[in-house]
């Protein structure tokens, strides 16, 4: 496949602006970039289903410019469009879908039978062959889509975001199948993805942004192409940092004071909540300082991961950080050093084009006052510094039942106790308990259908629980529905904006919905526009905003009434890494400065690491409830370190490792990742290397790579699935 000067316009909008790419036979090539980068346009043009305005696309040397040329190439192509099961027929069974696509492609009956069995076996769909497609889970749909794309044995497969919206376990399955197929040779794959962390799965990647390729090459080389050092640090307050802690106390006291003025009964609880500030607030201020200077900064619990571009070595990077943080009286200790990943590179490369960019690509000379309108004005989030503006416009009295008082006294924002929800005979949520403190970012993880959304819907009062109890924002969940709704903000996956209204109209609507009076509403709308970085676009239709901006607008709509708790249901789907970073900056500041509790669900495992606390849901139950660090530590103790093995023949290496009992061995570009089993890294590395050598694979290097939340998630869920299967087997 080859593209030269490829240009695609939609009306006046240039979606792809002169793209040059060449994909070699047998290559696994990745198109990585956020929504709107031009991935789909390119894939569709290659598939011959989209005309284009400039340049040339050639497939197997044939130009895909005329109808005839496209038809000739189509015989050797397999194309899977974006969206779960979009190319499949919902009412047909798995087998009928496959047969249909085979007949469409005139696959001989004997070939069909043989390929169908092999592909169904490989995807583990053979047990469900009579099940209608619409009843499959997202991951299964994607696997079936892949089978249908492969049934005519194409030489080039084009998959458009096959893993978007699929849970991590199914995503891993998907990659395993793909690697297995490609290991047999003869097939070339061009695959797009919005997940930066999937980059290492490809032989080569093209990093796309706004219709241009920022970089092309093997993921590791692309990442190494931008010089710099990634450090993990743990900030410690040594100087005037206490002021910030004091201000957090001030917030609680302030809120208590307001409540006391209007609700005599609330005095006791307000005093106690002022006394129980849940945590030290030091990390975020270091994060703010770093975020203002460096493009790629991630807050991970109490640690901060920062990419210092241009730094020659760890010493230079440390010195730069000392210069920056020392002035603010923040000391830090270095807790780790990592290799830059694609997201660092992407953010750094994009940031200079992006209005949010701190000047230059880093270094001590960079300015830290980005002053363009697109920049969110985060200082607006320091609610306590507003000079006593009311936090909620109307304080509704909640009935003062004892449970609420107890929760307030413990300083809990959310307290779920044994929540149950049935849909017919199906138990979607089974005895879920957890608690969230004010100022805490709490992540709810789980595969599609694990019950995350149902839990959120119960806590926000959209669904009533079948059983259990809980308190939200100091009101009883079952009885204080109206009071809860006054005190919480909610943002759903779909962002829930009115796309036919302008930015300002959306904000005014929600200001009205939350009952703000005219003066307060006008103030808050201005405030929210600044916070969303939408100054100058007040009268733009919401439909015309890019994903990142409409996401921030939706968040601001949910903040107009200054809620105590924010519920976010997969709020970052489809937003580019830079937009996600800005979004998380807002969340951090909200939680740290204003003490807002945040309950968030996400399917980006990299985002799970930003949370203070996580609960992992599986089949309606909470199966793990800990900090990200604790979860990773548990996995390390349980399953051992993750090793990256550099080998000559990665496909054979994976097979050899699996045969040797390393079941989760997986291909990542040119190297293999394997969970090595409990034990010390060096010793386990030797064991892995020995297994490979015994199988005749030449090992070049073995290194330990840090465990990710995705590793934790996949490992946990697989263990639970195995347990369940075992239990079933025992019963049978």
């Amino acid at each position, binding site marked *: 496949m080859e593209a030269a000067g490829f240009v695609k316009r939609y009306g006046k909008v240039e979606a792809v602006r002169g793209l040059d790419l060449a994909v070699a036979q047998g290559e696994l090539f990745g198109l990585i970039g956020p929504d709107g980068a031009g991935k789909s346009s390119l894939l569709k043009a290659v598939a011959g289903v989209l005309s284009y305005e400039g340049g040339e696309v050639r497939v197997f040397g044939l130009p895909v410019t005329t109808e005839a040329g496209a038809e000739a190439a189509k015989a050797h192509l397999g194309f899977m469009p974006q969206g779960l099961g979009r190319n499949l027929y919902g009412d047909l069974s798995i087998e009928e879908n496959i047969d249909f696509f085979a007949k469409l492609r005139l696959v001989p009956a004997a070939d069909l039978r043989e390929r169908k069995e092999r592909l169904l076996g490989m995807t583990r769909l053979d047990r469900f062959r009579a099940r209608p497609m619409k009843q499959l889970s997202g991951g299964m749909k994607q696997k079936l889509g892949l089978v249908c794309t492969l049934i005519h044995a194409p030489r080039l497969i084009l998959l458009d975001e096959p893993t978007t919206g699929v849970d991590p376990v199914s995503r891993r399955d998907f990659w395993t199948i793909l690697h297995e197929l490609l290991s047999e040779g003869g097939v070339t794959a061009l695959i797009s993805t919005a997940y930066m962390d999937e980059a290492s799965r490809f032989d080569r990647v093209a990093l796309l942004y706004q219709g241009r390729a920022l970089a092309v090459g093997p993921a590791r080389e692309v990442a190494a192409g931008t010089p710099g050092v990634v450090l993990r640090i743990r900030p410690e307050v040594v100087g005037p940092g206490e002021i910030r802690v004091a201000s957090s106390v001030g917030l609680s006291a302030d809120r208590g004071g307001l409540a006391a003025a209007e*609700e005599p009964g609330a005095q006791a609880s307000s005093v106690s909540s002022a006394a129980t500030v849940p945590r030290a607030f030091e990390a975020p201020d270091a994060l703010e300082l770093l975020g203002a200077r460096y493009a790629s900064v991630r807050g991970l619990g109490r640690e901060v991961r920062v990419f210092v571009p241009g730094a020659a070595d760890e010493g230079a990077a440390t010195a730069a950080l000392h210069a920056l943080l020392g002035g603010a009286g923040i000391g830090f200790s270095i807790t780790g050093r990592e290799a830059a990943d694609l997201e660092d590179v992407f953010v750094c490369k994009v940031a200079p084009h992006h209005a949010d960019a701190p000047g230059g690509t880093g270094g001590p000379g960079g300015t830290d006052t980005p002053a363009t309108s697109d920049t969110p004005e985060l200082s607006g989030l320091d609610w306590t510094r507003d000079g006593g503006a009311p936090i909620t416009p109307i304080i509704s009295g909640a009935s003062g039942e004892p449970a609420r008082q107890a929760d307030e006294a413990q300083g809990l924002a959310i307290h779920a106790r044994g929540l149950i929800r049935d849909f017919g005979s199906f138990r979607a949520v089974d005895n879920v308990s957890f608690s969230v403190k004010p100022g805490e970012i709490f992540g709810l993880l789980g595969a599609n259908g694990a019950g995350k959304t149902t839990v959120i819907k119960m806590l926000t009062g*959209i*669904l009533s629980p079948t059983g259990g109890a809980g308190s939200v924002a100091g009101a009883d969940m079952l009885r204080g529905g109206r009071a809860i709704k006054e005190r919480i903000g909610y943002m759903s996956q779909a962002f829930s904006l009115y796309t036919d*209204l302008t930015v300002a*109209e959306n904000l005014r609507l929600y200001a009205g*919905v939350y009952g703000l009076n005219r003066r307060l509403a006008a103030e808050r709308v201005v405030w929210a526009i600044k916070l969303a970085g939408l100054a100058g676009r007040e009268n733009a239709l919401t439909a015309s905003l890019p994903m990142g901006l409409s996401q921030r607008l939706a968040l601001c709509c949910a903040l107009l009434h200054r809620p105590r708790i924010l519920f976010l249901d997969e709020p970052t789907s489809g937003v580019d890494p830079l937009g996600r970073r800005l979004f998380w900056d807002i969340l951090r500041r909200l939680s740290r400065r204003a003490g807002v509790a945040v309950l968030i669900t996400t399917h980006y495992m990299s985002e799970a690491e930003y949370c203070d606390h996580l609960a992992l849901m599986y089949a309606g139950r909470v199966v793990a409830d800990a900090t990200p660090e604790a979860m990773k530590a548990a996995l390390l103790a349980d399953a051992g370190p993750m090793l990256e093995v550099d080998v000559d023949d990665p496909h054979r290496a994976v097979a050899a490792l699996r045969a040797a009992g390393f079941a989760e061995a997986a291909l990542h570009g040119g190297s293999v990742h394997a969970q090595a089993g409990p034990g010390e890294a060096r010793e386990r590395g030797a064991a892995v290397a020995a297994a490979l050598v015994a199988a005749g694979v030449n090992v070049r290097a073995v290194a330990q790579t840090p465990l990710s939340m995705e590793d934790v998630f996949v490992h946990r869920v697989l263990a639970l699935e195995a347990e369940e299967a075992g239990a079933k087997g025992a019963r049978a």
Partner: protein
Amino acid sequence: MSAASLDGILGSGRAARLRIWLRRAWALTVKEYIQLFRDTVLVLFMAYAFTLDVYVAGVGVNWQLNNAGLGVHDADKSTASREVAGRFRAPYFRNLGSVATREAGQRLLDQGGLMVVLDFPPDFGADILRGRQTAIQMQVDTANSAIGSLATSYGGEIVGRYGLERALNVPELNVDKIHGVPFIIDETRAWYNQNQEDSWFMALAEIISNMTLLSILLPAAALAREKERGTVEQLMVSPLSPVQILAPKILAMGSVILAGLAAGVFAVVIGVFHVPARGSLLLFFAVSALYIAFTAGIGLLIATIARNLAQVGMLTVLVFAPMIFLSGAWTPPEAMPSWMRLLMDCLPMHYMLDAGFGILLKGQGVGELWRELLGIIGLGAPILALSLWRFRRQFR
């Protein structure tokens, strides 16, 4: 939450609570107005439905016999045959000339070139002169049964009258000459619509039909769109009651429909067709407003059942088509089988039509319209309540 507890918190009590309630509902109403007027296609459709469409219905739809094509196969060619053929006059008939053979006449009937063929036998004139019984054949295309039967009865009347005149041996029958003959003179006086203008009936029926369609469709589409986009969930999570979410839709859509109705009534129904508006226009619009609000309940009910906009479209057709048939807009209720008339009594639109004709043409007031008002309220209120209940139940 009791009002008393809010009293304590807000100090100003019920008033403050009401103020906030209204502020919230108003914010949503403004939103509905903006969304409605930003939808150019919808606005144009509404403008069309209340003006041009009503005009077309009034002018174009006509239940009277007009310009029916007539062909004559005259094998007789006598004075009598020409006299009879000559009495098939405009505006009811249009004589398109003679037909050479019977077969040619039949063919023209089949092709639709003619609607009526008169066939005079060879000795028609002679038979009449001799006072012998004779017959002429009239073939009528009754594919459109209403117009066909009109043509048949007009033709029958013309021929019958000619026959009577010949029998009495008078050249032209009129009131002076009929004395002493036992003959009932048929003089009609039409009430309410003296000139029996079809346009009055049609324009009014059409504008009420369109008002009904829009009252169902607009709120249904608006709510379904919110369900599709997920915004309704956002509203449910904010401190809004179901009434607060639904009432602004009815208020915004309803007021716009009422404005359209007013434009249509003043510009077309009264302006162009000169419908007299004998009763109180204020009463007419008040009843219409009530009707629109309750009909919107049907729309909201549809939206709670439908999963997306396409389903709303289909369900609306499903509900609206029988409503039109059974309401009396197209067919007189008396002509229907009794079980259908029972069904009809369950349709608010039927009562609205009665009330509309009653007020505008007959000058009826509330006193005469109590049955219609009872029908509109008695049927509409439970539907509205049902839609509210279903909407609430979706989020349980």
